[in-house]
Every structure is written in C-alpha cells, then in structure tokens.
C-alpha cells in the first residue's frame, strides 16, 4: 500500500478558491501555499492534517481556476493523495503534471467517513478502508497519464522526449 492515512472529508464542487484563496497567490512558494491549504473550506485543516493523510471529496473537486497552486498546496501540506467522486478537468491535469496522486472512485467517495483509516494501492487501483474493512475500486488511469507519472511528472516526460529526438 503506497498511500495510507486518515481521511478528511469534503463535499461537492470544492473550488480552487477554497483550496487556496487568491489572496495568497501573490507568491508561488510551495511552503507558503501549503500553510493556507483548504483554508476557506476548513480554516483548521492545516493544523489538523498529518503527513500521509488523504482528502476524500464529492463530485467536481478542484473546479474553478487553473491555478497549479491548488494541487501544489495540497501536496506540500503532506496529503498523500486525493480521492473524489469526480475531478474538474484542469485540476485533474495539474495533479498529474505536478505528481499529486488522485483517484476517481464514486464508491469510495460515498463510503469513506471522516477519520477512517484509508490505504490506496495505485498499481491495482484498489482503495482499502481499514476502519470499516471495506474495499473500493478506483477508475483506471489512462496509459498515457501513467507514463507521465512514471517519468516523474510532465516536465521530466517532456525533457526525456526532447533528449531522445535530439539524439
């Protein structure tokens, strides 16, 4: 199990302004952004979250702006992965590009309750609820996205490609 931690639950349509409010976007420093992660959804989140913990949300997580600061702040806050019923598309791209693991699973989003101990096996696409002794399936990641993850993010993927074409 690659990712394991306590679940923090959020509702539907959590937008990027709730994840990282624009008043903090005058910086792109990841540590500073992490200090305000989820602030307008839950002002105490940053104090409560522990390394490895998992965000579990409803539909359309990350809707709104294209700010990569949103997944960056989640990743830097120590969250190991995000599970949601569905993701907004720019957030989905950004998460892969910067290496924040995300899993689409309506089943898990529904069943997991706040405080549950959750573990994710990304290779098998299996989400385990250790508190309730249940197992859920995550939607398979398209192969191309998997290649980006395997390369360690989009920039590495592109650099590798550029190098091989130059040779």
């Amino acid at each position, binding site marked *: 199990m690659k990712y394991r931690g306590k679940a923090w639950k959020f509702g539907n*349509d959590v*937008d990027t*302004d*709730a994840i990282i*409010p*624009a*008043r903090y*976007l*005058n*910086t*792109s420093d990841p540590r500073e952004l992490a200090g305000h992660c989820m602030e*307008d*959804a839950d002002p105490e989140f940053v104090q409560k979250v522990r390394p490895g913990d998992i965000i579990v949300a409803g*539909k*359309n997580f990350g*809707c*709104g*702006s*294209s*700010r*990569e*600061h949103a997944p*960056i702040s989640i990743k830097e806050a120590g969250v190991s992965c995000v599970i949601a019923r*569905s993701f*907004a*598309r*720019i957030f989905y*791209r*950004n998460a892969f*590009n*910067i290496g924040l693991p995300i899993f689409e699973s309506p089943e898990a989003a529904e069943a997991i309750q706040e405080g549950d101990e959750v573990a994710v096996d990304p290779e098998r696409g299996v989400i385990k609820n250790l508190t309730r002794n249940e197992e859920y399936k995550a939607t398979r990641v*398209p192969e*191309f996205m998997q290649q980006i993850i395997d390369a360690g*993010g*989009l*920039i590495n993927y*592109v*650099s590798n490609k*550029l190098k091989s074409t130059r040779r």
Partner: protein
Amino acid sequence: MSMTITEKILAAHAGVDQVEPGQLINVKVDLALGNDITAPVAIREFEKTGVETVWDRDRVVLVPDHFVPNKDIKSAEQALLIRQFARKHNLTHYYEVGRMGIEHCLLPEQGLVGPGDLVIGADSHTCTYGGLGAFSTGVGSTDLAAAMATGETWLKVPESIKFVYYGDLPRWVGGKDLILYTIGRIGVDGALYMAMEFTGPAIEKLSMDGRFTMANMAIEAGAKNGIVPPDETTRRYVEGRAKRPYKFYQSDPDARYARVYEFDVSKLEPQVAFPHLPENARPVSEAADITIDQVVIGSCTNGRLEDLREAASVLKGHKVHPNVRLIIIPGTQEIYRQILKEGLVELFIEAGAAVSTPTCGPCLGGYMGILAKGERALATTNRNFVGRMGHPESEVYLAGPAVAAASAVLGRIAAPWEVAS
C-alpha cells in the same frame, strides 16, 4: 466521417484527418498564454527542461493582469520575474502596465487569436476565444511550460454538447444571461470534460462581445471549451485585426453530440446567480429585495466596450445609491480610450462611480474592491465561490452589466427597466 467544429480543429492541429471523442492526441498550439499568477510557476518549470529558448517568441504571450499595477511587494516580484523572462526571450507579445488589458479581452482585440486557432493558456478562462470559432482551453502552469518548450500539448478529444437557442432576445437580455441560464440548467459540472457548442438563431444575432461572454463561462459548467460557429459577425471582427491567417470551421450537419439542448429564449429575463455557485441562476425579478454594498462592472466576462455602453445607458442621468460603491474596470487600454472618447468615463464619474485602469483586481479577490465580512456585492464577473471577492463570509451575486448598473442606482438587486426607460 462527420465531425464537430471542435473535432475538426483538433484533428487539423494533430495533423490527422479524423479524431474521435476520448482519443488522446498530441497537438501543435498556435499560441500559449500565461499571466502574473501562473507564468512564474511555468517559468520555473520551463527552466527545468533544459531548453534554452522558447519555441516561438511570437507565440508565447505573457500578460500581467491579476495583481498589476502591483498591489504589494510580493506581486511586484512576480511581475518582475515575468518581465525579465519576456526580455530575455525577446517575446513579441508581453504587455506592460499602461499598454495591457485583462488577458482574455486583450488577445482577441489585438488580433492574436483567430478562428480555427488552437490556443492553450494557463488561466481557466482561456476558453473565451471560442467566441471566435477557435479551440481554446485553460491548462496549468506545467502544461504551459511544456508548450513554451515544444509548441505542443496533449489533449483528450472531448465529446460535444450542442446548445440551440431559439427566439429573439428580449431587451436587456444578452450573452451573460444566456450563459447563466444555461449553467443554471445543466449545473457547474454539467459539461465536465466536454465541448459546449453554442448555436441557433439567437446566437447568430449575438454580437462578438456577447459571444465572448458566453464562451468565457463554459469553464463554469466544467467544460473543456466553449465554441460559437464563425459567421459574418466573426468575419467583420477579425478582418483587418487578425495577425495571422485564420480558418473558418463548421460542424457537419450529421456530427455526433453527447446531448442536444434546445432553449426558447424569447421570454428570458435577465439572470442573477446567487451565492456560492454560478449554477444558482434565477430571473432578476426573484432577486429584487436583496440589498448590496458594492457593484463591480468589469472582468474578462463583461469588461468589454458593449458591456460598458450598456451600463452607461442605464446609469445615464442617475446617481449611484449612497450605500453602494460602484467600481468600473474597462478590460483593456483600448476600451478605456474608447469610453473616454464616447464620454462614458465622465458619465460614470458624474454618477459617482470609481473608474479604474484595466486589471483583474476584485474579480478574484485580489485588490481594488475587497469585501469585508458580511458584505454583499453584485458583479459582472464569472465566479461567486465562497471568499471569491474577499472575506469568506462575504457574498457575490453574478449578473450582466445592465442589471449591475440598475442595482448600483437602487442599492438593491434591480432589473434594468426599473431605472432606464
């Protein structure tokens, strides 16, 4: 096989004859855009690629607009970073304070985007250029960095939803009302990952500015892009303006759509979206008792010339209500110059409004009109999320410029016909 306009543009940029929804493709981009929030992150990532120069200095566009003129030291440092990058790479299209505008008003106005283009921008409202019959979509900073290095990006071909609008638009009802109504019908994830194609007799009669407003808010329904089939109105707009050759694409009559919606808009009322989601759209008459503290007319949604003219036609001869601050922000320097020429700046100031230099400012709760706890604003912007314009316990209502102007006069959300004849 038949294709939609979106599919045709994607196929052309992927160098293939045919694409299908769901397919992952690599495409050449015509333009890549960044701003003072997203470009600093993109520049950092770009530098990691080891590529020494941007792929094409004419096609990487940087517009500082969110926190400029710089609102504080940190934002000044971000703006400096992109200014230095623009100089180092000798970018043709870098826009400094005094010559700039809100990116999505500026690019079409300057002729940098044309019909049939494929544009990506590290800003979610990049979808605005669909108003011209282009494919344009918002991406993140890392995607922008990769495109700055290679001139390419990857995309998943979206399914398309077709919207057909029938009937003549009533007076005071425009692009903003159509799109708020549409999002109200399908929800903020009603077009998730999809293309929204806006068609029908009401769209054919809509001005370019109204079309930009509609495509601009496609993202508010979760869409990848919004697009309006180009026609004579489009041609008149781009002729003499476009800096590159352009191409008109049209959907085939038997193109496939995931869904088709048909709306009769002949009796539509101006719309107001209640906090805290754009999908909470209602007719203005259902909002008439709500008092407000601030009105903002501007943004990439409604900061264009037609919007400001409409606001002026309502404000004319009236004063802003004593309890209201009215902030008017023209989208670009060119629009500013034009409203100055037409005497609208004087009219606004006469009415008691503040008129600002172009900036995103309050639209994203940046500066220039932040709300205190418990305050309520009506804005012509595009998002009314919690905390969008300031304190997490403030509220934003969304509407078009006519409702905004009438509300500023009456101190409560109001229909235009309550003020103007």
